[in-house]
């Protein structure tokens, strides 16, 4: 005898089985008395449940009138204009564009600086060279606070370069990333609220 199909019998009785499962269950029921008795038992239970009557409620018209009297004033939800809705979706697009622009700008700046240092630009991009006074600002600060000594000049030069080039880039990119994550969080919260309303509290 094939394995019992008891787990499918409720769905069979409710007409919820797909055709292949339905054929399988019906074929099994022809052979299996245990499962046939289970189906009959479930059908009897269903009939028994239907014997429990519902009370006489008030008429739907009267009920609707009572509800209407209790309805609070609801702020009329003004449909968001397409412009506002489009603006919402332009935020991540704008952040992405800003990130691309910043990354490209720094990359191009770095390439031009290297090319200029190698003499490939024949001095045309001398404006990329930083003012000597600014170059020494960070080094002077470190010297005043007593950090520099001996070979620390190399360290100071590296720190100078990091502060001037990489740090702003990192700061801008991290800021953009944080803004994007914030937008994602707001979007996810709005979506959850729309899907479930605020009806599933408690």
């Amino acid at each position, binding site marked *: 005898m094939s394995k019992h199909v008891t*787990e499918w019998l*409720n*769905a069979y009785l*409710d007409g*919820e089985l797909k055709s292949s499962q339905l054929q399988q269950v019906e074929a099994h029921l022809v052979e299996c008395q245990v499962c046939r008795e289970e189906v009959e*038992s*479930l059908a*009897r*239970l*269903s009939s*028994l*449940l*239907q*014997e*429990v*009557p*519902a*009370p006489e*409620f*008030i008429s*739907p*018209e009267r*009920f*609707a*009138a*009572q*509800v*209407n009297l*209790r*309805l*609070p004033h*609801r702020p*009329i*939800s003004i449909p968001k204009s397409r412009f506002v809705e489009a603006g919402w979706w332009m935020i991540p697009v704008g952040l992405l564009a800003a990130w691309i622009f910043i990354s490209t700008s720094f990359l191009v700046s770095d390439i031009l600086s290297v090319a200029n240092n190698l003499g490939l630009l024949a001095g045309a991009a001398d404006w990329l060279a930083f003012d000597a006074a600014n170059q020494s600002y960070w080094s002077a600060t470190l010297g005043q606070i007593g950090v520099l000594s001996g070979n620390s000049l190399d360290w100071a030069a590296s720190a100078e370069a990091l502060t001037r080039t990489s740090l702003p880039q990192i700061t801008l990119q991290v800021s953009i990333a944080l803004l994007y994550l914030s937008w994602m969080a707001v979007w996810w919260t709005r979506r959850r*609220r*729309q899907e*479930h*309303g*605020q*009806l*599933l509290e*408690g």
Partner: protein
Amino acid sequence: MTVPAVNETELVTRAQSGDRNAFSELVRIHAQGVMNVIYRMCGDARIAEDAAQETFIQAWLHLSSYRPQTSLRSWLYRIAVNAATDMLRRERRILPNALEDLQLHDPQPGPEALFLQEERTALVKKAILSLPEASRVVLVLREYEGMSYHEIAEALDIPVGTVMSRLNYARKSLKDKLEQKLFAQVEAGHV
């Protein structure tokens, strides 16, 4: 009562714009179903009517969140189930855990069959109320509202597989609770 889908969509759209008459029409259409569901959940007609009113008030306040992709009935029933749960907690109803508090008594003089029928329905009603809430609501929506598994899953925001397992549990539990008391009576020819 089947409501033409186009008509209901139009009523919902007007109600979402603030049309109280349109919303009243929706209330009239779905009142009976909502009250039935809540009554089957909690077993008290007064609680059912109060909770049903609360259901429609909440529906009115949150109508802007309703999306036409789901059926309005499913959406209303979800609110109704929550309203029933909240009302039961507020009323501090203690639902029966065992059926021993209602025994089938010896037949009294008078219409025996009618008495036993009333006893039987009371027993079945208490057995339903003794089910865990999660299984009870699935049973109610299936047996008394005739909703499909997919509609129940949509209303309760659970997978169809969960609907099946809870329904299986509910029916098995009811059979185990009622079989000895009622089916034995049937075999003895008392009903």
